[in-house]
């Protein structure tokens, strides 16, 4: 197992290298003047100075030279390094008025918090629905679960989200949008409130502020329900299909023939083996959530990384978009690694091969 993990870890730098090449490749479709944004915080106002700046930053040189500069930056005569993603300089986001790294660091905790709270309802309920549908194959529960999930998957996210807002916020005023009420935002941003994790629900508990914890949770309910409902259909169908296939296996028939209780047959013998495709799906669903649930974050005005990426894209903030793309790529690689390891844990054949 250790060898397997080491082998997979060794692939990570290579994959990251590949991601940077892909992203920089896309960047090369931009005009040299647009690529100046990689090194300069703002576009030059005077068109006459553009050629000199393009030459200064080697933007008229071969692509591999530009790629290298992008990785390690350009050092001027005074020894100041401009750019260089390997040195943590992802550039300056014009749409957010701050360095891209700061923007990601500010927005990511909100997305991470949403993911942490959403992953159980999204994945566990989805799996549970799938198992129930398979166990009651073609029965009332199966049909009801399938209809429920098809409706969910048919709803465009923003329509479902707005519907939730209308019912649970505008009318009932139970679950507001945003991340925290204004009253508590002020407390959280004060020096008296320790930001241990930057995840408000966790920090609230660590600071002994149960009122803030509940308020933060109130703001999470609608995004979680929306993400859950639109994702359940996928989990239900994959789990159901996998379970049905497993339940037809001879070893399951054998288990039943041995007189094992049906509950044990399903949950101890069939379900673990049916989970292999679900692990993959779950892994990539979590990646999707971590990379930012763009529509959900936008509809509920949740200040996560997805809504920041949308803002960057609509503002033509190329530098921020690059930063988000690299960050998403990084998360994807890490998630793929975790999924692979989980796969190996669940299925010994993987690590042995």
């Amino acid at each position: 197992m250790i060898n397997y993990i080491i082998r997979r870890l060794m692939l990570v730098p290579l994959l990251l290298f590949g991601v940077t090449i892909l992203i920089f490749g896309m960047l090369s479709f931009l005009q040299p003047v647009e690529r100046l944004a990689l090194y300069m915080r703002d576009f030059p106002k005077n068109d006459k100075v553009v050629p000199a700046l393009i030459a200064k930053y080697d933007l008229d040189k071969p692509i591999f030279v530009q790629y290298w500069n992008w990785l390690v930056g350009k050092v001027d005569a005074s020894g100041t390094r401009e750019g260089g993603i390997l040195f943590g300089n992802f550039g300056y986001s014009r749409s957010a008025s701050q360095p891209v790294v700061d923007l990601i660091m500010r927005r990511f905790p909100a997305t991470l918090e949403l993911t942490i709270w959403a992953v159980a309802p999204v994945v566990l309920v989805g799996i549970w629905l799938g198992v129930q549908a398979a166990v009651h194959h073609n029965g009332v529960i199966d049909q009801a679960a399938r209809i429920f999930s098809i409706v969910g998957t048919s709803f465009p996210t923003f329509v479902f989200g707005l519907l939730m807002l209308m019912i649970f916020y505008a009318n009932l005023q139970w679950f507001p949008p945003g991340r925290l009420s204004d009253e508590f935002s002020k407390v959280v941003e004060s020096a008296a409130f320790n930001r241990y994790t930057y995840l408000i629900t966790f920090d609230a508990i660590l600071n002994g502020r149960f009122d803030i914890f509940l308020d933060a949770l109130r703001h999470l309910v609608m995004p979680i329900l929306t993400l859950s409902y639109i994702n359940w259909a996928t989990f239900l169908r994959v789990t159901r299909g996998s379970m049905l296939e497993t339940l037809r296996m001879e070893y399951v028939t054998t288990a039943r023939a041995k007189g094992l209780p049906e509950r044990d047959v399903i949950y101890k013998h069939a379900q673990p083996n049916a989970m292999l495709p679900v692990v993959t799906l779950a892994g990539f669903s979590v990646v999707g959530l971590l990379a930012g649930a763009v529509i959900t974050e936008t509809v509920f005005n949740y200040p996560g990384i997805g809504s920041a990426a949308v803002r960057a894209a609509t503002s033509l903030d190329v530098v921020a978009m690059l930063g988000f793309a690299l960050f998403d790529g990084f998360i994807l690689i890490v998630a793929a690694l975790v999924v692979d390891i989980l796969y190996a844990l669940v299925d010994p054949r993987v690590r042995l091969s």
Partner: protein
Amino acid sequence: MRKLFALLSLLVVASMVLAACATAPAATEPAAPPANDNTATEPATTAPEAPTFASADTTTFVVAESEVGIDTLDPALAYDTASAEIIQNTYETLVFYDGDKTDAFVPMLAESWETSADGTVYTFKIRSGVKFHQGGDLTPSDVAYSFQRGLLQGGYSSPQWLLAEPFFGVGNDDISILVDEGASADDREALSANDPATLVAACEKVQAAIVADDAAGTVTMTLAQPWGPFLATIAQTWGSVMDKEWVVENGGWDGSCDTWQNFYGMTSADDPFSTVANGTGPFTLEKFANGEEIVLARFDGYWREPSKLERVVLKQVPEWGTRFSMMQAGDADLATVPSANRSQMDELVGAFQVYDAETNAYGPIQEVCNYDAGALGAAKFTACAAGETGNGGPFLARLGRPGISMDVLLFNWFIASSEESPNPYIGSGALDGNGIPSDFFSDVHIRKGFAYAFDWDTLINDVFSGEAVQSYQLTLPGMPGFFLDTPHYTLDLEKSAEEFKMADVDKDGIPAGEDPEGDVWTAGFRVQMAYNQGNNTRQTIAEILAGNLATVNELFLVETLGLPWPAYLRAQRAKQIPLMTGGWLEDIHDPHNWYQPYTTGTYGGRQSLPDDVKNQFKDILNRGVSETDPAKRAEIYKEANQLYYDLAVGVPLEVATSHGFAQRWVQGVILNPIFPGFYYYTIYKD
């Protein structure tokens, strides 16, 4: 594992139930009614008894804004309304607008001021006892430094050209003109390469024009010429006063004439003052999270009575449905409402105010008794008669006030085209029915023919749902030179045909209608009218014109062409676009700020106006801007209106009118159209 899953699920569900049961944050006790409402802007209400509306939190004011980017909070550099709104609430100027009046000013950081007999020297007595947010004392030196810093920072992406002209003279709109006649405009490196003595001399000229006397408590400003709109110019955010010590401490210009060039042509991303603020205004900047929210907190050390609101939260909420829900839930006091979504809000309007052109102000608040979704504008709402009770809707709508931007149909008198660089927008480039010659629009009858072919009613009703008014002139209500009875064009296809028949495009001295060898009337034309893609208003303007001209003469073909914005802008700058719609959002509420760009400035250039026409306007504008008597200025700009109409230089099209919403509890709003946003100092919730 299954037990763990079950436990986790249970935990999540339990948390959510707990969260659902949790009460909303405790509402603060309603604030006592304000002792003095110094806005003097809310007209007396004639509304009958109506349901009461109360905010859950009267101390925090929440605005749900659409996604806007704040470019910079540096008053010397900010040139967009989103930035200016924050600056106007955190910094202050020497003089300020008198309530909702666009042409009257009251003292702010200046206690008083005097103007020399020739109108070139302004002496401001600076208010004492004023503190900056971070504790510094306001001094005349801070005032002088702020203006000097702005002028020296210059740059054409900043608003400094508006201050440069009064100090350096008409046409001298950047400090680089004083250094090397503008050769190094917007290029710090090139400017710095000039002779140091020249650089110092330019700086000293600025410092000589703006002199502080801390002992006397005055600042004297000496202009290059009398400047009618000077107070209007310094009342805007670029006239804000910064704390010199704080600026220097934070990496700004140190006030020396040896170093100013290092700050020339500043960009917002490099400016250390783009995301911080330290003014004397009624609010401090508590939080600046561009793209999320901006929070302003009451400045308790404010030199006037502190604001009634403790906090103002400007939330960036890009999705309209979310903003709508926030308004419905009462969590937002104001919201940005796109014109396409106004009808959703209209249905919930319980009271309304309509602008009265005669008084140039909103009329009384009226309760709504009936709502007609099929009607346009204010006609949607029927006011309650005496004794009737309104529908109790939670929102107040204000409608009908003309805005501060205008669309103008523009003709390019001499379209750029050459063999090396043929113009793609003028077809064959000849009067052969398949194009137009490059001087097509230099014929005044052609321009008038186009002007009479435009249908304002269709534009206003179809595009603006009735919420716009036809512009008769380049001036707006409330400024010298605005006259309701000014000559203007209206749709008249017969007159349009007459004008085309009087044209002489082939320059043979014979009007087109009588020309046996043929001219525009018999040959026809084909021309492209470009607009920036996605701009539906401009597209419709082009389509209206195309349809009507085809009715005037079936040989007249106007093709509408959507271009990506960069291509559109490039073609405009290259003077290639023959026919276009130009838009302008005013900087100051003054006719100079309209006539300058549309005749001698930006658009005059893009229209390739000949020198003799430009000179005629230049003469009028110089007289207008130099005159300080509003009555005399009005007469001068009346000349400009007449000349613009006679020559049909362009055709003013429309000004959209207001249609805004607020919660019924929002009080004390100053509805001054020149404000970049809301001035929260006077606002309270009751």
